[in-house]
């Protein structure tokens, strides 16, 4: 199992001929992702890494006999058009990697996705990786690193990871693996204010995943996704153990530290409010990031393995 992505899913890349598209297609392929095609307007007929390139999403979908996921690597201002094209071509899961996508574009994408009964991840996501199976986006950067950094699922010791920080997605996966845990899937939901899948939706997928035994998350100040996750826990819809770290304790109201979503507006989205919500819902919130692996092991009732 695993959530969102595995080796059976058929994946295409929009913007496959660009610098990032090309490099990340290689990573995905080498890690085991089933990349069946790509598209860039005007570049139809070319090949990238031996993968056929078409002009439009509709053409790739047609040629591939249907696909599961499209990963978008186009400049930020073109992301809305790319996402809408994918939804209208019938793609049910679209990953939006680029940073700096305008907020109103993200909301238009959400509206179009909902109208087409489709999901999206991002914008501003590093991607999703299911160790031993497949990766979409760019988590790990290089296939050999990704294989070395993240453990495959281990019965009795497997966690699912979700994070609002790209770099910290990898960090969580790496340090949890070093503590001896297995990873079903790592999902970076993205750093922006309006995102497709957020913690509640991803947690529900982990809840339904037979391999995932606990959920580890790297949250941040701003927005409401940690609070909404806590509501699901309170409602009994998430019953697997939840272990969290919430970043941005020292951040001041109104000042932004990098992630557009990590901004406190008024009394909404504060560090204290998020810690309280998750704790009251029965989750464990660690104070230091370094305490996360130990807390995850404790939640699963297994010992920390040192010096792996």
């Amino acid at each position, binding site marked *: 199992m695993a959530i969102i992505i595995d080796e059976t899913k058929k994946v295409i890349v929009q913007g496959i001929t660009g610098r990032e598209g090309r490099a990340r297609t290689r990573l995905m392929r080498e890690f085991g992702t089933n990349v069946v095609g790509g598209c860039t307007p005007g570049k139809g007929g070319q090949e990238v890494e031996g993968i056929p390139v078409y002009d439009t999403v509709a053409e790739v979908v047609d040629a591939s006999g249907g696909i599961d996921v499209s990963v978008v690597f186009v400049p930020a201002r073109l992301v809305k058009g790319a996402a809408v094209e994918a939804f209208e071509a019938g793609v049910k899961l679209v990953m939006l990697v680029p940073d700096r996508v*305008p907020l109103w574009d993200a909301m238009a994408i959400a509206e179009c996705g909902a109208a087409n009964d489709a999901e999206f991840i991002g914008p501003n996501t590093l991607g999703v990786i299911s160790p031993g199976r497949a990766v979409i986006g760019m988590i790990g950067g290089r296939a050999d690193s990704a294989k070395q950094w993240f453990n495959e699922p281990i019965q009795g010791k497997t966690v699912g990871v979700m994070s609002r920080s790209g*770099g910290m997605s*990898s960090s969580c996966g790496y340090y949890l693996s070093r503590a001896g845990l297995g990873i079903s899937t790592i999902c970076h939901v993205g750093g922006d204010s309006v995102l497709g899948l957020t913690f509640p939706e991803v947690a529900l997928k982990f809840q339904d995943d037979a391999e995932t035994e606990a959920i580890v998350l790297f949250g941040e100040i701003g927005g409401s996704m940690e609070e909404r996750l806590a509501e699901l826990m309170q409602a009994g819809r998430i019953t697997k153990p939840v272990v969290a770290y919430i970043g941005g304790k*020292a951040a001041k109201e109104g000042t*932004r530290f990098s992630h557009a979503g*990590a901004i406190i507006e008024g009394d909404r989205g504060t560090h204290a409010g998020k810690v309280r919500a998750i704790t009251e819902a029965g989750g464990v919130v660690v104070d230091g990031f370094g305490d996360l692996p130990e807390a995850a092991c404790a939640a699963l009732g297994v010992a920390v393995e040192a010096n792996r």
Partner: protein
Amino acid sequence: MARLHEYQGKALLAARGLRIPAGDAVRTAEQAHDAASSLGGKVVLKVQAWITGRKAKGGVLFASSPDEAEAAAAQLLRMRFGNFPVEEVLVEELLDISHELFVSLTIDDAAQAPMLLLDCEGGSGIEDRADSVARIPISVSEGIDRGRVLAVLAESSIPSAAHEALADAIAAIVQTAGDIEARSLEVNPLVVLADGSVCAADCRVTIDDYAVFRHPELGIEIARELDHPATALESVAYRLEQEDHRGTFYFAQLPTEGWESTKGLIGFHGAGGGGSMMSMDAVTNEGYTLANFCDTSGNPSAAKVYRAARVILSQQGLTGYFGSGSGVASQEQFHSAYGLAKAFNELGMTLPVVVRLGGNAEDRAVDILEDACRDLPAAVEGYRKDDTPAFCAERFSALMENASGGASGELTRRVPDWVGGDAEAFPIEGGHVWIDIERCNREITAKLGEWSSGILKDGGEGTPVLACDEETAAKSDSEFIACEIECLRAGHPVLFVDLPIAGIDCPQEVC
């Protein structure tokens, strides 16, 4: 997020058909006198400042004559809120208000849509009535459902004669927010006047930073969230970011009052939002004061990291330099190492440096950084993903305790003496590459080809020439930086990448 002043927001509403009070934004007390005269004498004066609770803080005054208005304006223009001095005062006609409404458009992350908050009892005490405020979701493509607005109004005590005009006004507010891609737009209050007309009595707008590029009409100079007016260095950093879209470079200066009673004033260089925040905590926990926040991430080029380091080190009074990101970066870390090594070498770095370069190719990155800086007065140490931020901060503390005590104000940029003479130069974006041809031979030139990733080649007799067209070379600043640092490491400093920063190395108009 980029913010607009009240009078700027009101002008946008007026352009979409909403009535706003007659008035003028003024910068001097004399101008306030004139404005009050033309408004008939009785006016309200409001500071134009990005604060909440403006009235309670004394930022709103009433005047019944031009002379009173002049005195009031003089008083308001002396005020200061946080780091912001009051520079403008809005002088407006007095309104004969019969009813106040609270209208606020925000972006709702759960609904993935704009949300209109509407309260027909006005904005005062709104925090305590949060549950009774109507929430109306807005469709990005279709706007607001007028029927729902009218339904909320129908439940209120507002005379029905004003309902259509209010619905029009709310539609105009929603339209404005969409047109300018607002992150929030609040009209508190929206008022019904005694004559039954509707008017926006106040307006607060923030614009989505990522959309500012397509709204030149808003005249926003720096689209960044800051709690102070942009400093000269922040403006320099913002311009650099606009000129180079490879990766992200974010720079903000922090309040440093009282740093002398801490262990030191530190230039901070993060990589990635989450990891940066954690690393800031680690170095703060060791007892240091951070002079700035900085983040270079998203696979930045060596040139971008070089410029970021230069901007950080242009701050006066720094006693150390600490860099750290998530620790397990997907990007190959040697690009950052090259950029940092160039900045430290150019400045003859004297301050202790600790940089956590964990992630892909971390061994190569740490090797480049430490080796290229081996002859500098400063201790420069690189760390990897298995070294925690706390450990790196402790290590930094140890280096700081043994430091000679210099400060960044003493650092000056050094350009090799052979640059500018008979040396060979060709232009690249943002500067020039200089090569000391005299000291090149077949062996060194062969290496230059390798270190520049094939941008240079031996043109015969050991003379380096471009192996690509000039356009490609002009975009290869980062390859040339790698080449410069490798030359340095090998003991053959024959290549120098001259990337002067406007506003630091030369005046804005010269560079």
